[in-house]
């Protein structure tokens, strides 16, 4: 099987970082042992369309990958190959996706791929394997096939990128712009702690990104998780952690490096929330969503200026985007405000709808202003370096620090480093 993660156009002006993708290796972990897999992440290497294979599998996470996925499918069809597709964006765009591939897999693949591969071997691959709403037992989630990564391609100047990891699936929140509860179920589904520990321990990387939508879904499980993983001495990034002194303290002890925290207003609560993370030694990358109906241009600028007062370590700005199967999509569709359905533009950096309190151009300008304003004194790369120094220092104190890979000091994601240029997307 040729397993492919299609490329997408990176947002201009932002620092280039390619993390080893999680979906494809989680999927590969559910394949029967007899399936020989060759993996290509097109974001870091070109696809060799002539490489021998019996079947092609496209794994896609983002809306901005789907059209490239269709192009890849077409290339393989010209060569007489069967193409199947799965993953988050295959599910979000299923009605279109099914028109471009031979077989579409909807849902989570644990416990299902034996049958699919048998169907393939017997020449009766189904057009759709529909497991939407039929969530497999969370205990059946096993280890990812991280052995498929070409590690040198996820390395920047000798520094290995974080590995992605998940400790739970599903979400009990139905946030306005998010489709996770549609995809993974509206219930929080934590993995058994012993399996999490076993899986995490097996990763040959001391730095992880725990990609769960929010760890703050069950306080007791969260505390148990942090106590259990602390001895592994991994350092990790995650989304929101429960706003509770005991939990935050346990998180730091368990290796919390920095978290993504939504900054949605200029309240004292937000200011204190960020401070509490910092008080516990945890860094904060603010995530700021621009273009909501309750935001005027001035509101957005006030919010951006506010970031300077709360001492964020990093900030990431996104434009509200109506991804299918979100309330945002339904609302804007009913109101006739979506003017662009080109999925390549659904990258959260481009306005595809009519904002309520400003023009699309004004929102685009506010977004550009946000990036420039926040990083005017210190670039994104410099701020990341500051966070990197903090984690490296902690690792040195704990005896887990790994030296940079000297063989890759002049390489960045598989390419020779051009020291005359910044590592920024054009």
């Amino acid at each position, binding site marked *: 099987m040729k397993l492919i993660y299609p490329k997408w156009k990176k947002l201009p002006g932002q620092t280039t970082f390619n993390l080893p993708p999680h979906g494809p290796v989680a999927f590969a972990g559910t394949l029967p042992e007899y399936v020989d897999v060759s993996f290509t992440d097109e974001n870091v290497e070109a696809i060799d369309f002539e490489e021998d294979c019996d079947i092609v599998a496209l794994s896609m996470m983002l809306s901005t990958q789907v059209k490239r996925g269709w192009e890849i499918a077409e290339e393989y069809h010209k060569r007489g190959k069967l193409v199947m597709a799965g993953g988050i964006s295959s599910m979000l765009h*299923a*009605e279109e996706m099914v028109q471009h591939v031979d077989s579409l897999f*909807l849902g989570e693949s644990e416990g299902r791929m034996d049958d699919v591969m048998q169907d393939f071997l017997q020449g009766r691959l189904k057009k*759709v394997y*529909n497991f*939407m*709403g039929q969530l497999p037992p969370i205990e059946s989630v096993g280890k990812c096939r991280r052995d498929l990564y070409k590690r040198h391609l996820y390395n920047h100047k000798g520094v290995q990128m974080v590995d992605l990891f998940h400790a739970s699936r599903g979400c*009990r929140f*139905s946030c*306005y712009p998010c489709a996770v*509860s*549609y995809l993974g*179920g*509206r219930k929080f589904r934590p993995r058994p702690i012993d399996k999490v520990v076993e899986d995490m321990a097996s990763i040959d990387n001391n730095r992880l990104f725990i990609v769960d939508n929010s760890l703050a879904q069950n306080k007791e499980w969260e505390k148990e998780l942090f106590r259990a993983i602390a001895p592994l001495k991994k350092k990790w990034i995650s989304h929101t952690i429960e706003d509770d002194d005991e939990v935050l303290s346990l998180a730091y002890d368990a290796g919390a490096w920095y978290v993504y925290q939504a900054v949605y207003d200029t309240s004292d609560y937000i200011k204190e929330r960020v401070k509490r993370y910092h008080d516990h030694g945890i860094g904060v990358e603010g995530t700021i969503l621009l273009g*909501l*109906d*309750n935001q005027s241009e001035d509101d957005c600028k006030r919010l951006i200026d506010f970031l300077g007062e709360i001492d964020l370590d990093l900030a990431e700005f996104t434009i509200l985007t109506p991804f*299918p*199967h979100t*309330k*945002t*999509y*339904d*609302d804007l*569709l*009913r*109101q*006739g405000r979506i003017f662009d359905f080109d999925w390549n533009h659904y990258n959260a950096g481009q306005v595809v709808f009519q904002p309520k309190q400003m023009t699309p151009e004004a929102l685009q300008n506010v977004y550009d202003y946000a990036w420039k304003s926040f990083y005017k004194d210190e670039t994104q790369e410099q701020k990341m370096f500051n966070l990197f120094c903090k984690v490296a220092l902690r690792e040195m104190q704990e005896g887990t620090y790994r030296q940079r890979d000297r063989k890759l000091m002049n390489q960045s994601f598989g390419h020779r480093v051009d020291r005359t240029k910044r590592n920024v997307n054009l």
Partner: protein
Amino acid sequence: MKVPKEYYDELFPFQGQWDMPSMCGLKIRHHEGHTYVIVTELYQENPGTSITYAGRALAEQVCKAKGLDISQITYIECAPDTNSKLSFYDEEYFEVDFNADPQHKYRQLPADEIKRILEA
């Protein structure tokens, strides 16, 4: 973010996109010889496809279950007020014309118009 029961007379299970088991709130009103079908989004209580995404497929299922002719009803989607502090969850009603082009498929109903229908 539970949807108040005042928004529906009954819960209506339906087959969502890709056969996903789904659920909405349902009210049917008769006013001046006309039938109004009002489906309400249930958010967390809806395990599957949203009423808007389900669109005509949901309307057909309601009509089949209730013995109605889809061409003879006014079909209304309700985004209920869930008492959230976020304004994105304010109440809205939209009349849906499945035969119209996408830009004119939905018409937001003014408060007095939906009040007149609901009180019928």
